[in-house]
């Protein structure tokens, strides 16, 4: 698993290659360098690439292990990791547990394989977009490789309006002045513990929706809080989930005392995808 090979097919990313030249000069404690990554999906994609196989053939199990090892290292070193990374760890741990246990007949949720497929799809899509960006910037570009007339003799006026302004100009002007006028001295207190609702929002962004019954809570707790905060985290998560149930955005199920709490997004009446027929 050498790094040089993975570097070659990643032209846009010089982020971690910089550090390569000086491996292990001295002994000291390690730093987890998470700065070079654009979020957990990006980190996962990078790890997947080190498997040096087509994304369609990566081993999700190995990938999960790599990721979790990475996070554990970081935690052992008591580094502050952004919540995104921790929530992803929780989800991956959950995914792994699903992959290990054969699907139970009464388990209505997505199977581990389905979840893994979604993850794989998202990694592939992200990689595709990244490659597309590289191809785009390497095209002949106006003002760099290809040029327009240097001494234009006229401007063709299409709309016969003497004045010009773009929507961007307009919005900038509006936002800037409203901001100027507003008293903007709001301090947002840093949360010590974050709610299940927050976790859910992060998950949705990273993984897609929690469409089916999911017993995420204890994974979230394990990964996202320090041991001493666990009690408060349980309390606030649970409170948050009840609140979401009351708002009608979440459903909760527990099969017996002390058994896992299952959550899923509450399906509103199916939304038709056509023209806004859902008023």
């Amino acid at each position: 698993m050498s790094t040089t090979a993975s570097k070659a097919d990643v032209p846009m990313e010089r982020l971690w290659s910089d550090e390569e030249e000086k491996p292990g000069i001295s002994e000291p404690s390690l730093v987890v360098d998470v700065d070079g990554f654009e979020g957990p999906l990006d980190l996962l994609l990078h790890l997947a690439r080190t498997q040096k196989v087509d994304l369609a053939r990566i081993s999700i199990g190995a990938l999960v292990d790599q990721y979790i090892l990475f996070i554990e290292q970081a935690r052992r070193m008591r580094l502050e990791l952004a919540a995104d990374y921790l929530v992803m760890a929780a989800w991956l741990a959950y995914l792994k547990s699903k992959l290990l246990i054969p699907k139970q007949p009464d388990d209505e949720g997505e199977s581990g394989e389905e979840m893994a497929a979604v993850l794989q799809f998202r990694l592939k899509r992200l990689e595709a977009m990244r490659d597309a960006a590289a191809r785009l910037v390497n095209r002949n570009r106006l003002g760099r490789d290809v040029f327009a007339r240097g001494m234009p003799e006229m401007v063709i006026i299409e709309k016969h309006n003497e004045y010009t302004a773009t929507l961007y100009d307009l919005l900038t002007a509006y936002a800037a002045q409203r901001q100027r006028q507003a008293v903007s001295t709001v301090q947002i207190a840093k949360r010590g513990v974050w709610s299940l609702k927050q976790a859910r929002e992060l998950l949705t962004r990273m993984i897609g929706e929690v469409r089916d019954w999911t017993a995420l809570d204890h994974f979230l707790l394990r990964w996202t809080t320090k041991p001493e905060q666990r009690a408060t985290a349980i309390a606030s998560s649970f409170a948050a989930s009840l609140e979401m149930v009351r708002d009608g955005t979440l459903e909760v199920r527990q099969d017996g005392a002390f058994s896992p709490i299952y959550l899923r997004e509450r399906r509103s009446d199916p939304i038709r995808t056509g023209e806004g027929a859902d008023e």
Partner: protein
Amino acid sequence: MNDTGAKIIPFDKEGDHGNVVFHTDILEAVRMAEAIIFASASPVSEKALAERLPEGAQVREVVLELQRQYERRGVNLVRVADAWAFRTAGDLAFLMSRDAVQQKKLSRAALEVLSIIAYHQPVTRAEIEEVRGVETSKGTIDTLLETGWIRMRGRRKTPGRPVTYGTTDVFLDHFGLEELRDLPGIDELKGAGLLSARMPANFAIPQPPVDHDALTDDEDPLEDLDLEGLGLLTPRAMDD
């Protein structure tokens, strides 16, 4: 750009049409279109051309003829959406680079967002974030709006009516694309289902190995050392 070695003579060797008489009207219209487009730094729409060319001129035909005449010259006539512009030939980039204006370099994140907008448009901010799996930092979209490459297109007709983003003709012009269909690799991406918001039904579900913890033949076990080697764990400098 075509790169068939044979560089050619000026506007036309006369051989092929020495005898054919083109209707003078067309010839004159071609000259006029040439003058108008040449005079403008930004692309001139076919509509604007139609207003200026003699009545009855077939704008499309005129412009295509003009494009043909400039095909192998140092300056080419290119199409940008429904407008036309003269641009220096792509193969002369090496010669022109010295005129290049220093352009603001886009961050990797901004480039990624730009390509997602280009390939997935119309796309909402939430959808962009879903593709990238990370919140778009403040200023990224702002910067892209400022370049004039992206714009707010409208609103999605779903609850909440989120604003959708798309690219502009300035984007096409900048990257030398006639239209969005010319985005590199777009057909393959679409075919592979990678431009959809949801995983398409036909997307292959991976067959997990029977023992998914067992390493496959081409895998090595992971050790701390690997992570270090990957630069994920970097040795801390002594003196900081």
